């Protein structure tokens, strides 16, 4: 592969200094008369009204939390209320500059941004389009409820009430909230109005919005993505990772026809407090938040500090950044200074700030200031303002009355359907592949990898029964490649990325040869930023794309913990099915590299509800299961063993089919039939189990049936229980540390479901609860054939008791006492 970027030592070593693009601070100075002339009095009055709607909505929630009643209506609201009172200028100003096709991704303090964006979209969309949007939501049921219980007048008025009621019902976790009561205050969204998920994890939207922007860029679906977060989020790794990912030079330098930066705006609502810690002077060192843009790229992310107290300044800045993003010069950053007059939450006693400071900022209340501006300009008189305030109060009162009325907003009835929430975890949908991209298909046929695979045997043994080398037979690495290639040819939205994915072909060569076939934007090297790798895939999927991303080692799952556990896993259910999450996360389980590069962490992933988990051990299974994962609309974590990449097919008659096929996810596979003991294996443990089975048969006349789990979530117990009915004994073998492993879960359930058939308790043989040692000691750590024979003959079939072969001569109860 020729080098496209030359690292020139002469240029690199030359003396110089860095200059940073200037970062303006409060540069806005457009005369009000000019704004008035451009926008018109009506629009300015609407800005004030939108700020009042946000204020009254938040006040209502705060009042419920504080007093248990609002406007004479008693109601107990149990959930969170992270209010944005004082920050309305930022939310409404930004929304004024955004179009319906722009998508906002928010923070835990997102009600204001939600309402402002929604009101802006309602104002922008034609009445017929609004009706179409409302009719499309839950078959028009929510619209009917709004018409019946709130009313409103024309389409726009109805749509506003639809927006506010859908949000409030969601905050109250009602069945007809926008997300079916599965999202709540910190996760509400309404896709057709461009309001994408808010997020309870600080800074988590940055990576998701970046992935959304990637989709917008590649699919040319229009608009920009806005990552709303607070000043405190600038301390989080994932935000930096997102900005790094969004600023990659390759978009301009390597992406050919897809040249151009990502249309993502990092919008920091800077209220000076990260909960109680002060970002200026205490918990951060940037002094001005916008300074961090200078760290990202030569344009300093076009960063500016702007006055969030003035909605016109915010609208001006967002409109300018939007232009930059739509012309392919993104990303951009705005530091929007404003003040949160309300507490962080309703339990906030304001211990961290003084009355003087609060009073000083109350004088800078964006609503008071803007209303005064309108009055001074003669746009709105006192009576007009009062009428506006009364109108807003009445609107919020009506919406609230409906949202607390079970007839209008029924609670989610889990009692009536105890697995109602469970049913929302997965769509279990598979996308049918589209037609082949002819150009890609031709390029694939000409690629050396495809030609090489064509010459290989599909089965791992020659006709003479000799084992073929990985150069001469299809390996797991090849099988994975074939499934990926098929999906790339048939699914134009599919993109793949991760560390070293392109020129290197993935650290373990699975993608080798794909760079000859795919353009840069479909297969690229990511930064070493695991959180961004996964978060961007989540955002890309939310927008309608499909991504397969790679974490080089499973041990790096920790670096993307939130993104896998809270984002990838949760959004299908938190959206009550409105979102799908077609993301495949490939990760490899290492070998020979010791404690931080050789761990089987399937147990961590299977513990998290919302992820499908696959761990194949043969080429036939690897190809068919990866194809299923790539077709699935559900998020899947696909484990691969580095030790098995060169493994050839030894089981499936005829070998690995050259044609495309899928295998059902969740069905364990009997790899060797037997009658005396069942050995259920996870991943590469299949092979020591097979070796043990041969020995057991030969030396001890014990017939072992071997079942390869293949998938961990979902899991069909029937195959295993049928086997146990026959053998009455089961050993589960895994390379994961035993404590908390998925094998332990399987064993507990098999003990319960198969109790009457068992003559011994299910036994798990995993790795011990200590670090994976280096290559020289690995055989003392991962279960070996000798260890398996010891357990089968020593414990499960005691009459076969033989001299110990393995080294595991220890007392598990004593070890547990020692934290091992």
């Amino acid at each position, binding site marked *: 592969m020729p080098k496209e970027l030359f690292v020139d030592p002469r240029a690199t070593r030359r003396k110089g200094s860095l200059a940073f693009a200037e970062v303006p601070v409060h540069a806005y100075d457009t005369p009000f008369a000019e704004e008035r002339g451009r926008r018109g009095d009506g629009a300015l009055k609407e800005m004030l009204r939108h700020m009042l709607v946000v204020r009254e909505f938040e006040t209502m929630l705060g009042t419920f939390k504080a007093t248990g009643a609002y406007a004479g209506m008693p109601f107990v609201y149990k959930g969170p209320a992270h209010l944005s009172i004082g920050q309305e200028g930022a939310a409404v100003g930004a929304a004024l500059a955004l179009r319906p096709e722009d998508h906002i991704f928010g923070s835990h303090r997102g009600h204001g941004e939600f309402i402002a964006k929604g009101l802006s979209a309602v104002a922008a969309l034609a009445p017929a389009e609004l009706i179409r949007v409302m009719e499309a939501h839950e078959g028009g049921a929510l619209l009917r409820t709004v018409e019946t219980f709130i009313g409103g007048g024309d389409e726009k008025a109805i749509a506003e009430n639809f927006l506010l009621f859908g949000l409030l019902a969601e905050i109250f976790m009602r069945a007809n909230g926008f997300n079916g009561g599965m999202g709540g205050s910190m996760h509400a969204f309404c896709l057709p109005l461009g309001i994408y998920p808010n997020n309870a994890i600080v800074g988590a939207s940055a990576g998701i919005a970046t992935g959304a922007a990637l989709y917008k860029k590649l699919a040319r679906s229009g608009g920009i993505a806005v990552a709303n977060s607070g000043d405190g989020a600038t301390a989080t790794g994932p935000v930096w990772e997102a900005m790094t990912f969004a600023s990659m030079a390759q978009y301009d330098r390597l992406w050919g026809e897809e040249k151009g930066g990502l249309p993502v705006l990092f919008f920091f609502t800077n209220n000076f407090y990260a909960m109680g810690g002060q970002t200026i002077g205490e918990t951060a060192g940037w002094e001005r938040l916008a300074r961090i843009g200078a760290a990202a790229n030569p344009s300093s992310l076009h960063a500016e500090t702007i006055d969030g107290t003035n909605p016109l300044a915010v609208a001006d800045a967002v409109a300018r950044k939007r232009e930059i993003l739509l012309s392919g010069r993104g990303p951009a950053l705005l530091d929007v200074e404003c003040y949160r007059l309300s507490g962080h939450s309703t339990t906030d006693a304001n211990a961290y700030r003084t009355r003087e400071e609060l009073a000083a900022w109350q004088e800078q209340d964006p609503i008071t200031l803007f209303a005064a501006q309108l009055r001074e300009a003669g746009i709105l008189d006192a009576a007009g303002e009062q009428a506006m305030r009364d109108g807003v109060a009445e609107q919020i009162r009506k919406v609230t009355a409906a949202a607390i009325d079970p007839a209008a907003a029924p609670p989610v009835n889990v009692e009536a359907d105890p697995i109602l929430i469970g049913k929302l975890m997965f769509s279990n949908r598979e996308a049918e592949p589209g037609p082949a991209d002819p150009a890609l298909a031709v390029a694939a046929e000409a690629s*050396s990898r495809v030609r*090489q695979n064509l010459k290989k045997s599909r089965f791992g043994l020659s006709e003479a029964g000799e084992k073929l080398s990985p*150069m*001469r037979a299809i*390996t797991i690495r090849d099988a994975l490649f074939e499934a990926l290639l098929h999906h790339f040819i048939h699914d134009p939205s599919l993109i793949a990325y991760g560390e070293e994915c392109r020129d290197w*072909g993935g650290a373990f*060569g699975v993608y*080798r040869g794909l760079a000859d076939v795919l353009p840069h934007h479909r297969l690229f090297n990511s930064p070493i930023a695991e959180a961004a790798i996964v978060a961007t895939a989540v955002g890309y999927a939310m927008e309608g794309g499909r991504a397969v991303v790679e974490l080089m080692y499973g041990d790096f799952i920790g670096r993307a913990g939130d993104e896998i556990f809270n984002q990838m896993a949760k959004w299908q259910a938190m959206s009550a099915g409105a979102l799908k999450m077609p993301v495949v996360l490939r990760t490899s389980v290492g070998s020979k590299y010791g404690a931080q590069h050789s761990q089987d962490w399937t147990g961590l992933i299977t513990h998290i509800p919302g992820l499908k988990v696959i761990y194949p051990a043969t080429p036939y299974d690897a190809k068919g299961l990866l194809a299923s994962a790539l077709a699935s609309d559900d998020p899947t974590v696909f484990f691969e063993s580095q030790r098995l990449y060169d493994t050839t097919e030894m089981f499936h008659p005829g070998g690995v089919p050259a044609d495309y096929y899928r295998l059902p996810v969740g069905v364990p596979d009997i790899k060797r039939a037997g009658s005396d003991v069942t050995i259920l294996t996870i991943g590469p443990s299949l092979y020591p189990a097979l070796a043990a089975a041969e020995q057991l048969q030969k030396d001890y006349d014990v017939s072992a049936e071997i079942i390869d789990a293949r998938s961990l979530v979902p899991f069909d117990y029937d195959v295993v229980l049928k086997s146990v009915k026959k053998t009455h004994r089961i050993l589960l073998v895994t390379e994961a540390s035993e404590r908390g492993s998925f094998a332990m879960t399987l064993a507990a359930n098999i003990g319960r479901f198969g109790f009457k058939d068992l003559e011994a308790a299910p036994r798990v043989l995993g790795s011990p609860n200590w670090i994976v040692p280096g290559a020289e000691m690995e055989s003392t750590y991962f279960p070996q054939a000798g260890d398996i024979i010891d357990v089968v003959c020593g414990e499960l079939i005691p009459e076969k008791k033989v001299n110990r072969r393995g080294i595991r001569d220890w007392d598990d109860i004593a070890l547990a006492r020692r934290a091992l």
Partner: protein
Amino acid sequence: MADIPLVMPQLGVDIEEGQIDSWLKQVGDRVEKGEQIAMVTTPKVNLELEAPASGTLKEITVPADEIARVGDTLAIIAAD
């Protein structure tokens, strides 16, 4: 003038074979020492083989798409 063999190098401790992906030079071509003359593929990586000496590519003993073991002679260069 001496015949210098181009051999399949040791590509990794656990790699025994490599496949000639393509020859970048043909028999009779002039080659310079260090010049890339063949692309080789192992299960994990693609890499380029360099001419071990300057001279003329005299013979290709393992044609493209064939598999060779580590240490096998792949071609002969008639050195200057």
